[in-house]
């Protein structure tokens, strides 16, 4: 059973943080238009891209996402006037930070998808999914997550010796 399970091809998990006014409606349009796009995308709806804290992206990676898509209204179309302009600066800076830490930026995609662009949503979603599929699973964060759980790290010979000598 286990061996059989390992034979499955890698299916990327992708989290999409989208704004409710444009991209969510765009994705909805893609659905009502019966357009097909990969089922790897999990959509999380936000009031605005300006609400999407870089922490959310980080947490998505930490909790097992292989790719993250952030999408909102085109510049000038924001329901809250300037939310996406602020988000744009924040994400530009955050990308640089992630790159400096050593995260592959190919796994993180930003896009503008309006409520009328069902087709563009399909393109962006498909492209990111295929790219992440090529890259394979995101191992760095998973390794970090698994590392040094206390139960494991306490069993070192050095610590054992220290306990014995108390």
């Amino acid at each position, binding site marked *: 059973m286990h061996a059989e399970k390992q034979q499955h091809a890698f299916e990327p998990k992708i989290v999409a943080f989208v704004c409710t006014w444009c991209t969510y409606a765009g994705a909805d349009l893609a659905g009502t238009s019966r357009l097909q796009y990969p089922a790897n995308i999990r959509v999380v709806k936000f009031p605005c891209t300006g609400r999407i*804290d*870089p*922490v959310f992206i*980080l*947490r998505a990676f*930490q909790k097992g996402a292989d790719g993250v898509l952030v999408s909102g209204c085109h*510049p*000038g179309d924001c329901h809250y006037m*300037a939310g996406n*302009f*602020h988000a*744009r*600066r*924040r*994400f*530009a*800076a*955050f*990308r*640089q*930070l*992630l*790159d*400096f*830490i*050593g*995260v*592959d930026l190919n796994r993180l*995609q*930003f*896009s*503008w998808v309006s409520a009328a662009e069902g087709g563009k949503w399909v393109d*962006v979603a498909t*492209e990111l999914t295929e790219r992440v599929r090529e890259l394979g699973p995101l191992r*760095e*964060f998973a390794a*970090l*997550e698994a*590392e*040094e*759980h206390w139960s494991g790290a306490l069993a070192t010979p050095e610590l054992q010796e220290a306990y014995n000598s108390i």
Partner: protein
Amino acid sequence: MTTTAHTIDPALYAAATAALRQEARTVLENGTAAAVIGWQAGRRAGSALPAIVTDPAGAEQLIFAPGCVNNLALYLTKAKKEVRGKGRLAIVVKGCDLRALAGLIGENQLNRADIYIIGIACPGVYGAHADRRLPLAEETVAPKCRECTVHTPTGVDVTVGTLPDLPAFTPREAAELARLEAMTPAERWRFWKEHFSRCIRCYACRQVCPFCYCEQCLCDRNRPQAVETTPRPAGNMAWHIVRAMHLAGRCAGCAECERVCPMDIPLNLLNRKMAKELKALYGFEAGLEPQEKGPLTSYREDDDQSFIK
């Protein structure tokens, strides 16, 4: 090896100390300030600790020496509520600390009229592991002082001390930053992972930062928990990324976070990197003048969006 060319004469600090005491006594006597925030000698030779002096006679205990590493701007933030409210405060600042003060004024945490700034012409301070019996020299100077551009504070109410001809120290942080930037992402990941894995989550970096004045920190919240709080590699990585992100475009580069880190994590490298990137992206530099809007609290319609599909 010519030691004289590479050391800073201790007599300069004595002169600055005398001028500082004189100034502090004056402002306390004539009522310009209700208290002076400065440094006093610590118990160990060569060390100094922050002092708040309210009595003109107490001005005698103030010092300026290479051990005066603390960024006193911290004492004017919300994080140190007990200091505020004594009346108008005078504060002694080095050039790097003044940048933090300018940032706090820009963020409406302080009113320029409520503080009297005594600037110090500062030749440099000790690094975290310096042998404090030695004079300030190549081996003992702090990394940030090697590339300091603000030896003489500007825009202060009064400047004390005089600056000598400063020896040229070898830059270290810039070289380290260039080395990291030249690495592949995988190498950088390994570098930071090793450093962050040692983090014990003491939050000293947060407590000492003049810009970490939030009354409730995102990273202390547990409902919902944004950042894991146990000192485990995953949570540590998140904490340091969040910290660097929150300081992007605000950090004044006083490098206090790095100095207080008990695990010697090169935190200022992250801050410097972000400052560099924001300068490249938006031409913004945390400067000596208070600025109302930082790069991440403002925008231009024609900002670069080449990374957005």
